[in-house]
């Protein structure tokens, strides 16, 4: 299958100022994301995961190596706007990415910038709002919405640009549990129904248990690239990277350690309950 995103031997440094050593934020990272996949990028603070997001959107450019978005190199100045249209980006703070004073006008902001003809705009906006389940809020003002709702509007704003891929940089970090669930359900649905490629960057492991693929970052290096099931049971390995495995995995791990035989790759509470019920006393 075609690669939506391809990162090839990318290194990146942040300037820290006069006389100080520049910090290597990314150190020779390579990975691919296939079209239609739902992938997670996870790592503790300062692991370089947010840097990747900004590289994917041509906000930063790699020091060495290449970032390709459906075959287009971000270094190529001509491609920047096409890349930003194809790979939409959602940021952490729901408040600071809303531009307009009315919800529907905010959703229209992206396509307006692309110069979508007036006749098509209304349709795009309505469709995007329906997709995130916020159509009835179209005339509301941003400050009348909850954090989760604002974040869904931000997603609608990206959808209205008809992207092939959505990159979300810790979209749930500032939300309450209800808002987190709303946002996660929305992006999962997008991935299933519209076959949009999703790159979810987060530090919550339980948000990415049903991803197609996950990438674990640590100190600017890619530590793991594979299925979530295979890595989540390696509790020791994860803890070394200062990551906390999902609750269910932790329980099954501790149970195994204290001599109760149970499958070690359970990821969700439901799976865990199922397994525990099958235990013979």
């Amino acid at each position, binding site marked *: 299958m075609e690669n939506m995103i391809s990162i090839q031997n990318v290194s990146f440094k942040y300037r820290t100022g006069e006389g100080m050593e520049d910090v290597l934020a990314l150190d020779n990272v390579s990975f691919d994301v296939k079209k239609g996949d739902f992938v997670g990028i996870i790592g503790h603070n300062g692991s370089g995961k947010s840097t990747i997001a900004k590289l994917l*959107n041509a*906000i930063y450019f790699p020091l060495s190596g290449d970032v390709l978005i459906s075959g287009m190199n971000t270094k190529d100045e001509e491609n920047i*706007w096409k890349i*930003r*249209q194809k790979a*939409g*980006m959602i*940021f952490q*703070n729901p*408040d*600071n*990415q*809303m*531009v*307009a*004073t*009315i919800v*529907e*006008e905010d959703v*229209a*902001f*992206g*396509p*307006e*910038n*692309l*110069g*979508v*003809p*007036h006749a098509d*705009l*209304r349709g795009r*906006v309505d469709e995007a709002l329906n997709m995130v389940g916020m159509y009835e809020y179209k005339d509301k*003002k*941003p*400050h009348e919405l909850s954090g989760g709702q604002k974040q869904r509007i931000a997603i609608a*704003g*990206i959808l209205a*640009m008809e992207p092939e891929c959505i990159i979300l940089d810790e979209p749930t970090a500032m939300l309450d549990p209800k808002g987190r669930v709303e946002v996660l359900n929305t992006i999962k649905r997008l991935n299933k129904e519209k076959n949009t490629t999703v790159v979810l960057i987060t530090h919550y492991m339980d948000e990415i248990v049903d991803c197609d693929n996950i990438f674990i970052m640590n100190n600017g290096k890619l530590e793991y690239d594979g299925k979530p099931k295979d890595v989540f049971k390696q509790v020791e390995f994860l803890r070394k990277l200062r990551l906390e495995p999902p609750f269910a995995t932790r329980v099954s791990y501790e149970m195994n350690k204290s001599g109760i035989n149970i499958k070690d790759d359970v990821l969700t509470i439901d799976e865990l309950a199922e397994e525990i019920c099958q235990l013979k006393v």
Partner: protein
Amino acid sequence: MLNDITIGQYYPTGSPIHKMDPRTKLMMTFLYVILLFFANNVYSFVFMFLLLSVAIKVSKVPLSYILRGIKTIVFIIMFTVVLNMFMTPGDNVLCQWGIFKLTTEGIYNAVKMAIRIVLLVCGTSLMTLVTSPISLTDGMENLMGKVPILKNYAHELAMMMSIALRFIPTLMEETNRIINAQKSRGADFESGNLIRRAKALIPVLVPLFLSAFQRAEDLALAMEARCYRGGENRTRLKELKYTYLDRYGYMISFFMIAGVVTLNVFGVYLL
């Protein structure tokens, strides 16, 4: 303490004036203000007064809202009246103190100025009461785009205004939060003289400004990520459209001009 601040002073009633295109309303207000300064006799002033009264009646905005604007400028009106009364040169001196002369011309001028200012303030506040800040911004962008010198800045200015409107409630919320946080740690905002109270505001303003800058940076990044490249080649979800109401609006404008000119000329004979 900050929740009661409303943005602009829009008072929606759904009247025909509310439904008019913002451009029409801006143009009519502009014309009204100019004509106020052309009006030179009792008849044309009565005409201007009647025009505004009818507009207020049609708009269904309560009179108290319109008069609220005058309260804030009572001082300016008084100052202008006094200045006009005593500083207008004239022959018909009623009484005199040094260089200050009270003349009939002065009184006449003072009354004229007072009426002008009152009508001007009422007229312009009526416009802001019947037009939402967003459509006002849209209207201004559109009209400025037609003026050669302002053309290049029209989009940027309108974008700045609408972002300001967007963030006023957000920053107000934040101010409240900071004030509460400082209060919970024993900060005192309510007692002491003016200087002390002003000083107490510093620990509120510093974090507020800091976060406003952070927000600005985030917003700029988010706007670029959504392909914002300035006003060129942008399309609009809501395009301004003239309706039959605006046709009436422009007809009334001509009626306004004709009325003032006629009354100015023939008023002399009527007197």
